[in-house]
């Protein structure tokens, strides 16, 4: 399977990644070769097989609906690149 530079661009946009010119070529080549390799799965007939998304059932993980303590606000903000008045601060949303 051949992944074009345009497709790399489309994927990078979805993944919120800016790429350099060299990276477009590199990733087009690497993604193509990995997807070629992965294509061997098509040899397997998986008709009627249930997919495994997870090994354990997590349905027993509910707890009582009680108020509990959580991470203190100062802790939550401790690693913020920028914060103000107890809030995360980000650049303007509309360019």
């Amino acid at each position, binding site marked *: 399977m051949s992944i074009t530079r345009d497709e790399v661009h489309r994927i990078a946009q*979805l993944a*919120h990644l800016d*790429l350099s010119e060299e990276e477009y070529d590199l990733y087009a080549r690497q993604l193509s070769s990995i997807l070629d390799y*992965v294509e061997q799965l098509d040899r397997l007939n*998986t008709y009627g097989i249930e*997919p*495994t998304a997870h090994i*354990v059932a997590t349905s027993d993980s509910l707890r009582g609906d009680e108020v509990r303590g959580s991470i203190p606000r100062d*802790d939550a903000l401790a690693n913020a690149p920028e914060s103000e008045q107890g809030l995360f601060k980000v650049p303007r949303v509309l360019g």
Partner: protein
Amino acid sequence: MKELTNRTVSAIRELVVSGQASAVEICRAHIEHARAVEPQIQACRAILESSALEEAKRIDGDRRAGRPLGPLAGVPVAIKDALCTRGAPTTAGSRILEKFVPTYDATCVRRLREAGAVIVSKTNLDEFAMGSSSENSAFEIPRNPWDTSRVAGGSSGGSAAVVAAGEVPAALGADTGGSVRQPASFCGVPGMKPSYGRVSRYGLIAFASSLDQVGTIGRTVEDVARILGVIAGRDPCDATSAAVPVPDYTTALTGGIDGMRLGVPTEYFMGGITREVESAVRATLRLAEEKGASLVEISLPHTEYAVPAYYIIATAEASSNLARYDGVRYGHRAEGVRDLSSMYFQSRREGFGQEVKLRIMLGTYVLSAGYYDASSLKGQKVRTMIRNDFEKAFENVDAILTPTSPTPAFRRGEKLDDPLAMYLSDVFTVTSNLAGLPGISIPCGLTDDRLPIGLQILGPNFQEERVLRIAAALERELQFDRERPPVPSTPPDR
């Protein structure tokens, strides 16, 4: 002065409990040795000297005051830098987390501290655990203590190397596709990935959440078992941690393997396996037979599809997990951006390394509209087939024995430009992550060049005891601990 390094977990605890050595002396001796070998090994992201000495002092204080001492009292432990340590930077080997200082401990780290362990270092790894040689680290690249021109394996290469080099008696790693077992194999030490759900993942920086599992590396199988016993068990902070009781794993270590049925899968002795790996593993199988086990040839027919299925599933989950690195709440934020959207794009461009970006894109691709059914869903169905292979095999055998990796440690740089070649070094380990099974690698021999070779033992879900029993029995026969890497595992005379 009596030698304080180069001892097992239980021997160190005994020194502390009996008062033959203080936790502070033990801590200092290990840090001193680490500083002596680190210029060659580069396994540590950070040595936590001051906090470690404080913890050690507290243990000594507890002893003097007659307070009860935990099962790991005074035992120095290293932690893979993908596990959060309160107040100590935790980078996951990535520039994007270079300045991240967790405000909490991972549950496994907290349990170690509560048991009296002293956290002495954070170890290097492939960025976000994505790699098989630790060369994808944004920082130092650990070297193999047996031959520093070779890799320590990955992604927990630092954790395996610090144990092999005698910097600590034990370390925590994490295993998504072989990331504890393969480096343990390359560095000649035992390393275990427990069953999925056995150890809480709370505070483990996520790579692929349905595959990630915290694992232990030690100098002996007993050390591995002791550490596992402390960190295992249900944790309300991780919904996937299992409410399965934690047995005393050390009691499993004394039993033999007489009468056990051990499966030998044909598919794990094909492909790129080297002659020396095959002969060392087969010699160990004969040893198991001599000790009363019977060998049963089995087939795990979908083995060849495990690596492609793994790379679909793991990258899909990674692309989702790593979406959180957006420069808003923590992690790197690009400077001088004009708006929020360009901040996301720029921060991620600057913060992530090449392999991480490749995997994010691969995962994004297989999850994207039009490709999901053909790739992601297909991968998950193949995962079911691989699980079924194991389930069927375990109807007839107690455990499965294989090589851990097809080759011994390869040279630095050898596979760096070819992601696919790198992926194939996990061909024998990814299967048990896909199936959630416990597995251990123990050293079973050396190549002519004196590079360690690993034997992998896989068991049914939550049968860690059985896996450990077999590992301990074979360890006793193999006596691999007579072999030492050329990087000194004891400090020079003082």
